[in-house]
C-alpha cells in the first residue's frame, strides 16, 4: 500500500514538474497574437573557431536578459542553451537591449512589420554582444505589400543607426571596399568607407598590416553607421574593420 501511494505521488509530481517546465516564459506566450515575434540564439565567445565558450546563462547575477527598449514589460531571460523568444513586439523600428548584471552589453535595432518573425543570431565577443545574422520572415498570409514596405536592401537596416555586418570583400580594399554579407542579410553589396576606421586582424595585429589585408575574398566584420540605404544600394561609414580571415 505504501509503495502504491509512493508511485502515485511520484507520478503526479513528475507530470506536474514536466508540465510546469513546459510552461515557458510568461513574457513570451506561445502562439503569436500580433506584432512582431523575435526568436534568437546567443552563441558563446569563440563560437567561430569552436573554442570553449562563455555560456549565455543563468547563475545568480550573471543572467543575460533581452528587453525591447522603452517597453520593459517585453523582456526575457536567455536560456542555458542560448535561445530566447519575445512575442507581441509592436511593429515598426525597435531596439533589443542585452543586459548582464544591469549593464547593457549590446543593442540591435530592427525594423519589422506586423506578422513578421525576426530570426536573430548574436554572439559574445569579449564582454559585448555582436550581431552575427538577422533574417526577417513574413508569416502574414497577405504579403502583397511586402516589397512596397521595404526601403533598404539590408534587412533591419535604418539610416543613421549603428550597424554591424559580417561578410566578404567583393571588390576594392583597404579603406574603401564593397562587401557581400552573410546570411542573405543584404540583397546586394554594401559600400564601406573605412578611411576613419581602426583596423584589426585576428591574431591582434593592428594598423597598416590589417588595412592591407582588406582585399577581395577576405572575411571581414565591420562596425559603423548606416549612412545611406535604398533598395538598390547601401553604404556604411565604418569605425572598425576586423579581418577575420585573410583572402586565399
Amino acid at each position: 500500500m505504501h509503495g502504491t501511494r509512493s508511485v502515485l505521488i511520484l507520478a503526479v509530481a513528475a507530470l506536474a514538474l514536466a508540465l510546469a517546465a513546459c510552461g515557458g516564459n510568461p513574457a513570451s506566450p506561445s502562439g503569436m497574437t500580433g506584432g512582431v515575434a523575435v526568436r534568437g540564439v546567443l552563441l558563446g565567445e569563440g563560437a567561430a573557431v569552436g573554442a570553449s565558450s562563455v555560456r549565455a546563462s543563468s547563475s545568480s547575477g550573471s543572467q543575460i536578459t533581452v528587453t525591447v527598449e522603452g517597453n520593459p514589460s517585453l523582456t526575457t531571460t536567455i536560456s542555458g542553451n542560448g535561445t530566447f523568444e519575445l512575442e507581441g513586439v509592436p511593429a515598426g523600428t525597435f531596439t533589443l537591449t542585452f543586459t548582464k548584471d544591469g549593464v547593457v552589453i549590446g543593442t540591435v535595432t530592427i525594423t519589422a512589420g506586423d506578422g513578421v518573425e525576426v530570426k536573430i543570431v548574436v554572439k559574445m565577443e569579449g564582454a559585448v554582444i555582436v550581431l552575427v545574422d538577422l533574417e526577417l520572415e513574413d508569416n502574414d498570409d497577405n504579403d502583397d505589400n511586402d516589397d512596397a514596405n521595404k526601403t533598404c536592401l539590408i534587412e533591419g537596416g535604418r539610416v543613421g543607426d549603428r550597424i554591424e555586418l559580417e561578410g566578404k570583400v567583393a571588390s576594392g580594399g583597404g579603406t574603401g571596399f564593397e562587401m557581400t554579407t552573410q546570411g542573405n542579410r543584404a540583397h546586394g553589396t554594401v559600400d564601406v568607407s573605412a578611411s576613419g576606421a581602426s583596423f584589426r586582424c585576428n591574431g591582434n595585429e593592428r594598423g597598416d598590416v590589417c588595412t592591407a589585408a582588406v582585399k577581395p575574398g577576405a572575411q571581414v566584420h565591420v562596425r559603423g553607421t548606416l549612412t545611406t540605404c535604398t533598395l538598390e544600394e547601401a553604404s556604411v561609414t565604418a569605425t572598425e574593420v576586423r579581418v577575420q580571415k585573410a583572402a586565399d
Partner: protein
Amino acid sequence: MRNAWLALVVLMAPDLAAAQRPAAGAVARPRPDVFLGYSYTHAGEAGLNGWELSGSYPVGSSLRLVADLSGHYGSFAQADLTQATFLLGARRVWAKRRFAPFAEALLGGVRTKTSVPDVSVSDSDTDWGGALGGGLDYRLSGPWAVRAQADLLLLRAEGAWESDPRFSLGIVYRLGR
C-alpha cells in the same frame, strides 16, 4: 531543485539497504533491460526531437543501476541545435502484474551544440547535467515491454541548474531468462 533531489534520495533509501539482502517472496527475478525510443525535449525555447537509449541492471528486487544516453535535434531562429546527454544513476521500480512504474535520478553530462549554417558559425559546450523523473513499463509477451517516461532534464550552466522537460516513448527488451 535541491528539494527534488532530496525527495528522490529519501524515496530510494530503503531500497539501497534492501539491495544487500535477497528479497523474500520475490515474484520474478529482476533482469537487465534495454530501452530504445523516440524522445522529445523542450530545451530553452526550442522543441527538439530525438532518441533515448538506456540500459538498467538490477541490484536488488526493486532497485536498478541505469545508464542513459539521448540525442535531441532541431532548429531555432536560424540555428541548428543538438543536445546530447550521457547520464548514470539509480531507478526504483514498483513492479505489479504487467505494470512497472518507476522513478529515477540520474547525473552526468549534457553536451549542447549550436551551429548557424548561413554564416558557418558553430559553438559547443559540455556541462553537468541530470534527470529526475519517472515512467511506466507495460509488459508485453516474452521479453518485450513498452515504456512511457517523463523527466526533468537538468543542465548546470554557469553555476545554476536549469530544467527542461523530456518525454520518451519506446520499447524495452529484457535480457536473460
